[in-house]
């Protein structure tokens, strides 16, 4: 008999670890069997070596991408949530913009990146604009959906007590919408990383996306892969940050079984 703690540890960590080993094995095998040169596909150890040797470079370029991602994301929250409140509470605004937002949600906003670069140049501003653009939609759409899903009874209860609009918002609508806001933020943060990298691809002089491009153009494929891994860590870390925010908000959230 295995004790249940150990059993859980095996399923939680053992299996994913095993999956990772399988993939690394396939990678090494592909390099050997295909006899691929390092320029095409470096072996994992070469990538690891590049990661360690160029760590400082990866960190400094990574920091640029982190700033673009987080600032753009925060901008999307700061602008998206108040706009969502306005749209959810005003019938004309709702009729005017909500269908538009839904329609625009499935448009690939990153396609605007080249145009935004023409407008704002190759610096931080254009990256912020692109990140904001991709992160804004899931946040505003989910927040509006959350605000509109506030049970009618709760609104009537507040009304019957002559609650002020501010009280209704703070004590009823926003807490009711919070699980939706968090769902939107999780999608938004993932898109934000993608937006930052695309922005750097289209035109930049710093950042992990830029590093990736310049490394491939110099045929330094191990460094390109190292940059790719750094980007992955960045994406995961950003997502975990939102999950942390969710954990902190736990006391105000309904049990996860009832979440959307």
């Amino acid at each position, binding site marked *: 008999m295995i004790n249940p703690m150990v059993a859980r540890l095996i399923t939680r960590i053992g299996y994913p670890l095993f999956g990772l080993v399988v993939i690394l094995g396939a990678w090494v095998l592909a390099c050997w069997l295909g006899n691929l040169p390092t320029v095409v596909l470096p072996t994992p150890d070469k990538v690891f070596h590049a990661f360690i040797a160029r760590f400082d470079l990866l960190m400094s370029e990574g920091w640029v991408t982190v700033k673009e991602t987080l600032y753009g994301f925060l901008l999307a929250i700061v602008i998206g949530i108040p706009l969502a409140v306005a749209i959810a509470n005003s019938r004309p605004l709702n009729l005017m913009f909500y269908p538009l937002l839904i329609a625009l949600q499935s448009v690939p906003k990153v396609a605007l990146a080249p145009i935004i670069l023409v407008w704002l140049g190759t610096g931080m501003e254009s990256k912020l604009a692109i990140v904001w653009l991709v992160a804004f939609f899931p946040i505003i759409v989910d927040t509006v959906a959350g605000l509109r899903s506030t049970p009618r009874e709760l609104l009537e209860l507040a*009304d019957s007590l002559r609650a002020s609009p501010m009280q209704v918002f703070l004590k009823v609508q926003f807490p009711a919408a919070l699980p939706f806001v968090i769902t939107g933020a999780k999608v938004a943060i993932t898109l934000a990383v993608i937006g930052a990298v695309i922005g750097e691809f289209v035109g930049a002089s710093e950042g992990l996306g830029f590093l990736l491009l310049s490394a491939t153009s110099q045929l330094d494929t191990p460094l390109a892969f190292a940059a790719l891994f750094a980007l992955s860590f960045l994406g995961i870390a950003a997502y975990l940050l939102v999950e942390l925010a969710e954990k902190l908000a736990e006391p105000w959230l309904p049990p996860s*079984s*009832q979440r959307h």
Partner: protein
Amino acid sequence: MAFGTIRNVRKVFSAGELISRSREPVVALDDASFDFEQGQLVALLGPSGCGKTTLLRIVAGLISKTSGSVNIGGREVTEPLGDYGFVFQSPSLMPWRSVVDNVLFPMEILKNNNKAARARANELLGLVGLSNFAHARPHQLSGGMQQRVALCRALIHQPKLLLMDEPFGALDELTRLEMNDLLLRIRRETGASVLFVTHSISEAIYLSDKVIVFSRRPARVAREIQIDLPYPRSQRTRFTAAFTEAERIASEALGVLPPGSEAETETGAAS
């Protein structure tokens, strides 16, 4: 004048308020009139969709009426007066608040959330047998327990009038009978006036001093039935001749029972 007078209230939902897709105005309530005294429990009985919820919303001042008048405690109701208690069909608790904080919600809105309010919240939770659950979250409670919390929330600010919209309609029969007895007990202890919407004939009679029977939509008052069953009532009351007689009259007024030999002529609905 009676404590509450509802006179010729009519409601037509027209463009702007309509929830349905159709542009046609909906006559939700044709003509409702009745009175009630302070401390009375009046049951509003009618087929579903006849306009009972609409009438409660109008009495609460939550929506406007097309014509007629509603007067509660000497004040004409045109907007929420702030001293009603509301209990809905679903408990409608806030999942992000503990039980006691749900009960205290009205006091927060009324900016009265003081020590006395907390004491009263605990007292009310004791009255409905939920003292041990004050700090639980709503989802940890059964449907009947949640509805008891909703009842406490409706009573916390000592409202003049309690509006209950099919509050026990979603509960199983046994829980519903328990809740009926609980409501009778709470009425005795708080002296609250109650408008109680239901589509259960026996529940309406068991709880009330007066049953207002509504016709199909658009609702008119089909019949007003005085219930003179003595207090305190218990489940035995359901098996008395007076109770059965009231059930017969209500069934006829609702049109589920063809008038018998000694049937009286209907008032209102037949016009």
